[in-house]
């Protein structure tokens, strides 16, 4: 079984899906000759030709909006937004067109498309190469939102996204692109959108996270385990729909929830998860459902690492939850 990075898994998934289905096309800024600034589409223009893998002009509105039209017309476009931070010039296309097309047409027109985007911090990218805008997408009806954290999942989820009949925002934590390698089966497999993964079983506290901070969350869990605590770790993988059942059943067991995300805190996915758990497991919670999040500040260059939930910060918060 080949060992792949997340970037490798993306490239493989795209390639396999393009072989499988003629309707799959890739485009975006620099995805063609250059193979994308992170090389996610490397070699694909050579393999599939410039009709199916091509560069767009520098406009996210053009990219996302054209994907809507292609999808409505019958293609299965996979559009790349070069950084999640740059979705905003094109976000009206995502919100007013992609997300609402099925509903507004009474189900006549649909937009089965994927918008891929590198997300999150940790690469010294400053304000505009570090943001985690998933809450904006999850707050907007009509989209599905995936944030991956492992190469294996990436392949299975990207394939699901491409075959999905809805517009899927597919977020790839860029600091994980080459941070870990994993065995990824060569065969075709799918991971369902909307299902979380239990990354570690435990009984004392539930740590829920997704995307980039899965790294620190798992490290923190190890440290906790070393200290005799038994944490359960859940990777949401999809944030819309998010797997409420998985989270509730874990927290029902542990009685404690620490939610970790690197996105800004206010009105975030972390808020949603802790609000829901607090509401639905009111009697089972042994301690307040607590959040460790990114901050409500523009992403700072100099404190690149400090912005994201550090292992220390997770441990500090977990201690408060456990000691409550």
């Amino acid at each position, binding site marked *: 079984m080949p060992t792949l990075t997340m970037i490798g898994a993306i490239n493989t998934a795209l390639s396999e899906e393009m072989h499988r289905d003629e309707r799959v*096309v890739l485009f975006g800024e620099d995805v063609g000759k250059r193979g994308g600034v992170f090389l996610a589409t490397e070699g694909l223009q050579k393999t599939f030709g410039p*009709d*199916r893998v091509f560069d*767009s*002009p520098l*406009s996210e*509105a*053009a990219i*996302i*909006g*054209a*994907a*809507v*039209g*292609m*999808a*409505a*017309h*019958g*293609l299965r*476009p996979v559009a790349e937004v070069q950084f999640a931070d740059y979705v905003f*010039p094109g976000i*009206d*296309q995502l919100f*007013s*067109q992609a997300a*609402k*097309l*099925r*509903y*507004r*047409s*009474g*189900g*006549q*027109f*649909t937009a089965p498309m994927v918008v891929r985007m590198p997300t999150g911090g940790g690469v010294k990218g400053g304000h505009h190469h570090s943001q985690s805008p998933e809450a904006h997408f999850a707050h907007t*009806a*009509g989209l*599905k939102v995936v944030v991956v954290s492992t190469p294996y999942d990436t392949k299975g989820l990207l394939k699901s996204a491409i075959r*999905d*009949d*809805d517009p899927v925002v597919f977020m790839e934590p860029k600091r994980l692109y080459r941070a870990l390698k994993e065995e990824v089966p060569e065969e075709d497999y799918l991971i369902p959108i*909307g299902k979380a993964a239990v990354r570690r079983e435990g009984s004392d506290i539930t740590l829920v996270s997704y995307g980039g901070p899965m790294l620190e969350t798992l490290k923190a869990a190890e440290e906790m385990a070393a200290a005799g605590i038994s944490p359960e770790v859940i990777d949401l993988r999809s944030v819309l*729909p998010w797997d*409420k*059942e998985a989270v509730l059943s874990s927290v029902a067991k542990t009685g404690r929830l620490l939610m970790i995300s690197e996105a800004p805190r206010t009105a975030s996915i972390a808020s949603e998860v802790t609000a829901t758990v607090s509401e639905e497991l009111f009697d089972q919670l042994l301690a307040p459902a607590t959040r460790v999040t990114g901050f409500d500040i523009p992403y700072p260059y100099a404190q690149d690492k400090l912005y994201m939930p550090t292992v220390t910060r997770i441990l500090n918060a977990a201690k408060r939850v456990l000691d409550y």
Partner: protein
Amino acid sequence: MIKDQIEFQPFTPEPIRVLSEEGVWIAPFELDLDPATLERFYSEMVAARMLDERFTILIRTGKTSFVAPHSGHEGAQVAVANALRKGFDWLFPYYRDMGLALAMGVPLVEIFGQMLGSAADPAKGRQMPSHAGSKALHIFTVGSAIASHVPPATGAAISMKLRGTGQVAVCTFGDGATSEGDWHAGVNFAAVQGAPAVFVCENNRYAISVELTHQTASPNVAEKARAYGIPGYRVDGMDVLASFYVLKEVVERSRAGHGPALVELEVYRYGPHSSADDDSRYRPKAEVEAARKRDPILRYRKFLEGQGLWSEAAEAELRARITHQLDTALEEAQAAGEAPVEWMFEDVLSSRPWHLEEQRRIVLEELR
């Protein structure tokens, strides 16, 4: 259909016309449309006008909540519908295109269903009135956000090119739309791709109250095509034949692989921007009256009469027929009843995840 001798020139200083304001043929080529076609254009324009008038009644009688009147745009809209291959090419219209929707063949009962948000609306009463759409007819359902349908039109055109379907994507919008970033992004991408997209501006010189001179410093809309390296045509949009001829040529050139074009159809909107607008706040009555003198229907009727193709009797018969169609369709749309509440939580996604199921139950509980 495409004239051998004449090719329309882009970027003309004056709008292209084939009929004088008195309805006299003034083009440097021969009329080559058969009487049935010529008469159809007229019927479609009159139907569009009468539909608009009926909408006004719906508003006055409180039967609908919103209308974006299209009177004055009928020549342009009928030309668009006839220049493309209906049901084969794709149309990306905007909210002022109910006359166009009708000319495209959208059944009147669907139109009224949409206007009333009734159960007769194939789009399930999801949107404000004046938002047409039909998958069967390849009419991309209108959304309210100005110019946001332009990049999707480009995307469809790219798909058409890629797959060699021989289709063309025709996208209509107002003059105000040209200021939006999405308009620019969409037209530019289509041009780079050489995709079969035709962008049609129904330029009525107002975006609600904002006059064209506050919208752009460009002398006209067609000129904007230069920014994208595509041809731009300035046409008298109240001359249905000029609009038709230019659009037909442009659509077929685009189909033949010549890439996008921008066509500006100069029209005037007789009514207020919408039923929520009071246009006397920003434009003089006299201006409206003057525009009515260039009325596309009157002018074209004079032409038809000159050709011996129209009469008072034909007019009366036509109007009676349309009135009857409007009456029947409206009745049917009303009889369909209100859009059912169950539709509220359908079609958000391809299937209903737990959170929507929960939210649906909240509403159902409340209604019990």
